[in-house]
């Protein structure tokens, strides 16, 4: 197991270097001079040049990239934001908890909504509940979440006045964003749980459990669920990673100061250190998340555990 984890971690290194390189290259060739943006509509060429020099933008690509990697590897330093002059790590860590919380709440909503619905749907296949929740799930997948967010603001904030429309400070503030970001995941998890559950309850070992005289509830929760949740777990993990990276739309709609908005702003303002650091950070988080799921797998599924050895 340890060996397996170590191998996975080592494999991450070239991937992350690749991420750094791709982002760096892309940013380098993106039109829009960071210095010019900082200086605005009226800045003399002299000033722009001075600033470019100050920022090190006048150096050739290879020099810039290798300096970046050197600082990263040797000094664990990924620079400072052009705009706020903050260390990139600080700038990201300030925002990350909010996004993490948003994504976690979204996944929580998705899990709490999706797994029970999926289970009930599967155990009552072809019932009205099943059909209704399947249509709902399909709609959930089909609904653009930014649209859903806007519509829920209209209904719950504007028309009914029940919930605040922006910010992320109190539980009340979190309800709409969490629902918005969690809906499509809930739908996906519902579908996944249902099909996985259907697959499992047709298995012989479920019949075995019933043949033992076990209660149906226990058959479902203990025998079926544990097996059915294994593939669902992957989806939950993937969704979590996806929500972390894709929170920007929800953050925009609800004025939530998360890492997604930081990134989009940074891209627009050509705040390259933030973009690079942020993408790297999210990529690592995402990869760790995947690793975590694979490890969790081993705990749930003894078959996989023995494979890792």
């Amino acid at each position, binding site marked *: 197991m340890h060996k397996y984890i170590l191998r996975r971690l080592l494999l991450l290194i070239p991937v992350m270097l690749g991420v750094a390189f791709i982002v760096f290259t892309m940013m380098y060739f993106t039109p829009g001079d960071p210095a010019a943006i900082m200086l605005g509509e009226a800045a003399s060429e002299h000033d722009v040049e001075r600033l470019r020099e100050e920022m090190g933008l006048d150096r050739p690509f290879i020099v810039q990239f290798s300096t970046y990697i050197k600082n990263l590897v040797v000094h664990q330093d990924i620079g400072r934001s052009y705009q706020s002059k903050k260390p990139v790590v600080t700038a990201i860590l300030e925002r990350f908890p909010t996004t993490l919380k948003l994504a976690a709440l979204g996944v929580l909503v998705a899990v709490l909504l999706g797994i029970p619905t999926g289970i009930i749907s599967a155990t009552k296949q072809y019932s009205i509940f099943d059909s209704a929740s399947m249509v709902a799930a399909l709609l959930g997948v089909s609904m653009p979440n930014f649209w859903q967010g806007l519509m829920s603001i209209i209904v719950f904030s504007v028309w009914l006045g029940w919930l605040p429309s922006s910010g992320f400070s109190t539980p009340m503030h979190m309800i709409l964003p969490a629902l918005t970001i969690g809906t499509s995941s809930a739908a996906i998890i519902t579908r996944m749980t249902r099909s996985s559950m259907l697959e499992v309850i047709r298995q012989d070992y479920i019949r075995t459990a019933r*043949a033992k005289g076990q209660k149906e509830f226990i058959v479902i929760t203990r025998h079926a669920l544990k097996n059915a949740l294994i593939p669902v777990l992957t989806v939950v993990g993937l969704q979590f990673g996806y929500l972390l990276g894709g929170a920007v739309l929800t953050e925009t709609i609800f004025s939530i100061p998360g890492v997604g908005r930081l990134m989009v702003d940074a891209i627009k303002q050509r705040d390259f250190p933030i973009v690079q650091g942020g993408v790297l950070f999210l990529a690592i988080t995402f990869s760790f998340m995947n690793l975590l799921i694979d490890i969790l797998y081993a705990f749930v599924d003894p078959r996989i555990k023995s494979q890792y050895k």
Partner: protein
Amino acid sequence: MDKNKKMLSINNLSIHYITEEGTVAAVQDMNLEVAEGETLGLVGETGAGKTTTALGIMRLIPEPPGKIVQGEIVFQGKNLLDMTTEQMREIRGNKISMIFQDPMTSLNPVIPVGEQIAEVIILHQNVNAREALERAAEMLEKVGIPPERIKEYPHQFSGGMRQRVVIAIALACNPKLLIADEPTTALDVTIQAQVLKLMNNLKKEFNTSMIMITHDLGVVAEVCDKVAIMYAGNVIEYTDKKSLFTEPRHPYTLGLFGSIPSIEDDEERLNPIKGLMPDPTNIPSGCPFHPRCPKVMEICSEKVPKDTEVSKGHFVKCLLYEE
């Protein structure tokens, strides 16, 4: 051992599967009896309705699409079909146990085998979890698995070993009736013999009645007292083992014997039954076997044959023997 004490009797049982494509009469007008300590063989091709019968007795037919349309299943004097789910759960795994066909899939892959055996013990016997595990270990030993392996998972066992675990689960509560659904089909030939022997020994030890589902007449010869041959949901011949092997009557049964290669006979070729099992949603009229029957008569496509007692305790569903 009182051979005449009835353990189970099935009367006029019909089980249908109702699907969009049509209704399948998986079991039709079935009449069977199993006495205490007796072994009944249920023989037929795949799709003949054997497993449905077994699941019917366990009341584990998936509903929908399955439905028990008529009949009764009397176990120890009580009709199982009248029982509540609660009462039925008391019986399952306790008084009636079942061994399934495929040991590779009938164990839960994410639960250690010991717990899977212990589960049935906890359910039906007044013991706590620790005691149950101890008993589970004993059961493992009884079926020939070192009890130290109690904490291992099914994937760590071979097929034959897993079937032993399944047998351990089935016999853990000392059931009155054991239904074994082709318990050896999925196993290697050498293992098959071992497992059959094990079952036979245990059955004798516990004085259990048994329904042995199989398509293998060799298995029947080895373990059964009585045999019911099934074809397309019907028991077409029902008799004791001896008369089945000495004087089979139904053309289908004859055909079955014809398709067994025999070393003793000098016949050069096998005589397999021509044709295939009918589409279950589209059973032929009259006698369902008539399109394949070598002795088919005109009336066979019109009239549904009834049980005919050709000699004492030997029932055949064939118009050849109807008056």
